[in-house]
């Protein structure tokens, strides 16, 4: 019930912008933010929509990931994300404990982890292939 009232007010807020009155807002809707950059996937009007435009490049075999590069990628994360990654992936704490420490539900932790890991993945991928990183 609380959520639905919140949504209703929010919809009013967002849609109220279309009212265009002097104190209403400029209309800008936000499509859901994709985890991986949408540019990496084929568009709706291309063959195989939503499939990789270009497969991710394979990484060199084991132990080629530099801990320094990984730390740099970790440092580049937004603070709340880095915190969750440290607790869950590095310290290996279970979701329940992380919930107590951060206030994030297990579901929210997974959402954060998915995005954070993807950012690290992009960052490492750039480091491994310097010629592709420029664009």
């Amino acid at each position: 019930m609380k959520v639905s009232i919140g949504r209703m007010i929010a919809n009013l807020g967002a849609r109220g912008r279309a009212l265009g009155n002097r104190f209403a807002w400029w209309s800008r809707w936000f499509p859901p933010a994709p985890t991986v950059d949408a540019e990496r996937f084929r568009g709706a009007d291309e063959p195989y929509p939503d499939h990789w435009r270009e497969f991710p490049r394979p990484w060199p075999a084991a132990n080629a990931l530099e801990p320094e590069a990984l730390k740099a990628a970790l440092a580049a994360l937004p603070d709340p994300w880095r915190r969750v990654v440290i607790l869950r992936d590095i310290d290996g704490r279970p979701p329940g404990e992380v919930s107590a420490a951060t206030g994030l539900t297990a579901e929210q932790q997974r959402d954060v982890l998915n995005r954070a890991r993807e950012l690290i993945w992009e960052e490492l991928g750039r480091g491994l292939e310097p010629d592709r990183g420029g664009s």
Partner: protein
Amino acid sequence: MITKDAATPRTLARRLLPLQIGVALQGLILWVPIEKLFMTQIGFDAATVGVMAAAYAAVVPLLEVPSGILADRWSRSWILILGCVALMLSSLIGGLSRNVIAYVIAAMVLGIYFAFSSGTVDSIVYDTVLEETGSNELYETWIGRIRAVESAGFVLSSLAGGVLAQYTSTRFTYFATIPLIGLAIIGFLRFNEPRLHQAAERVSLRSHVALTFRTMITSRAVVGVLLLVATAGLLSQAVFEFGPLWLVALAAPAVLYGPYWAVLVSTLGIGGLLAGKLHVERRLMLAMLIILSLATALLLTWTRSLAVLVAAQVVLALVLAIVAIHASRLLHDAVPSSIRAGVSSGAGTMTWILFLPFSLVFGWAARENGVHWSGFMLAGAVVVVAVLLVVSVRASRGAAPVEVALTAKEEAVEVSQRAQELACKQLVELVADYLDDALSPEMRAKFEEHISGCDGCTIYLSQTQRIIAELKDLSPLPDNLEAPRTERA
């Protein structure tokens, strides 16, 4: 379908508090309720009010794109602060002005404030929620709270402004606004803004506009709804902009403007609540709304009673709020989520563009024949809205309603269910859930089926697993990488 009661983490509420305070203070624009009264005092007539409205209607769309780019490239908090500075400057120029030209300049500076503040708070809230929770699910809840705080500021300032004008002067309300906006700046300065541009890349406004035009050309259903949204917006804006002129014509006392404006502004909120309850798509309700709006618009053309006049304007504003909300729902139903932003921007731009000539003609007609006569222009616009509404509602009957905003994960699940298969773009949203064993058996089967046949996703999944494995090896971490402000639970 993933359903859950999303909880707000403590840090999110704490982080958004300064923003809420800033937004509330920014809403305390004391001169808004008595603006039209003040304008007539310094020599405006209906026609020049129209010119003034057209002047800022022209500024806003011009500055919208540059301010949006600036906000994304530089800092959104600072764009809000610049908007506040423009608002303070506009209040100062407005308060000092003794003739039409000076006040039109103030109105154009106000246009800068509109352009800078519009959409900026939304994107800040969106990115903050994403940074704190990893998902946009709580966005609607929080933008709703912030809009509620903002509306409370508007209502409060409406009441306070009218009283202040009665006991001091209309001019004083302009100067009294300046320190309040200054306090809002302090709130925005204390806000820790999200810096997530690389992860939460929004579609650029230019591509929104390009997509909008493509949609407008290819889809006739969208064109009709778009016109409906724009004309309903135009009409609503006209009521807010020119409504006070009726009060001026009847020589209403200054103290009445505050409550009048407060009630008028509150129709936006009440209309929003009602729109969720009423079934606008039903014939009877549709007919009632149309008759009500037409009757109130016509009432405005001949009544000389202040009470009837205010009641008519409030009812008209309320009906328009309901219609506008239903219209934008139709619009969102008619376009896929990927171009929703672009199409909505197009509707907003169209409203401003339509409003520009409308306000000029309205002002001119009001001066030549009295503001009551130009009420016929409102009635004419009501007829246009009614026709478009009937056409759009009829076209939409039978179409399945669409959830307004989905999280990326919810959308991925829904898309894959509709398409009967999981595509790569949707799979990447579900990797963390897969690794945590949180997928439904059905989704898990789809996930594994896709992975077994797709080299790209196999690489992505194995690289993600490798990242997780190597992260584990980093433990224990050096201090400089520890999360800041570790709290005790």
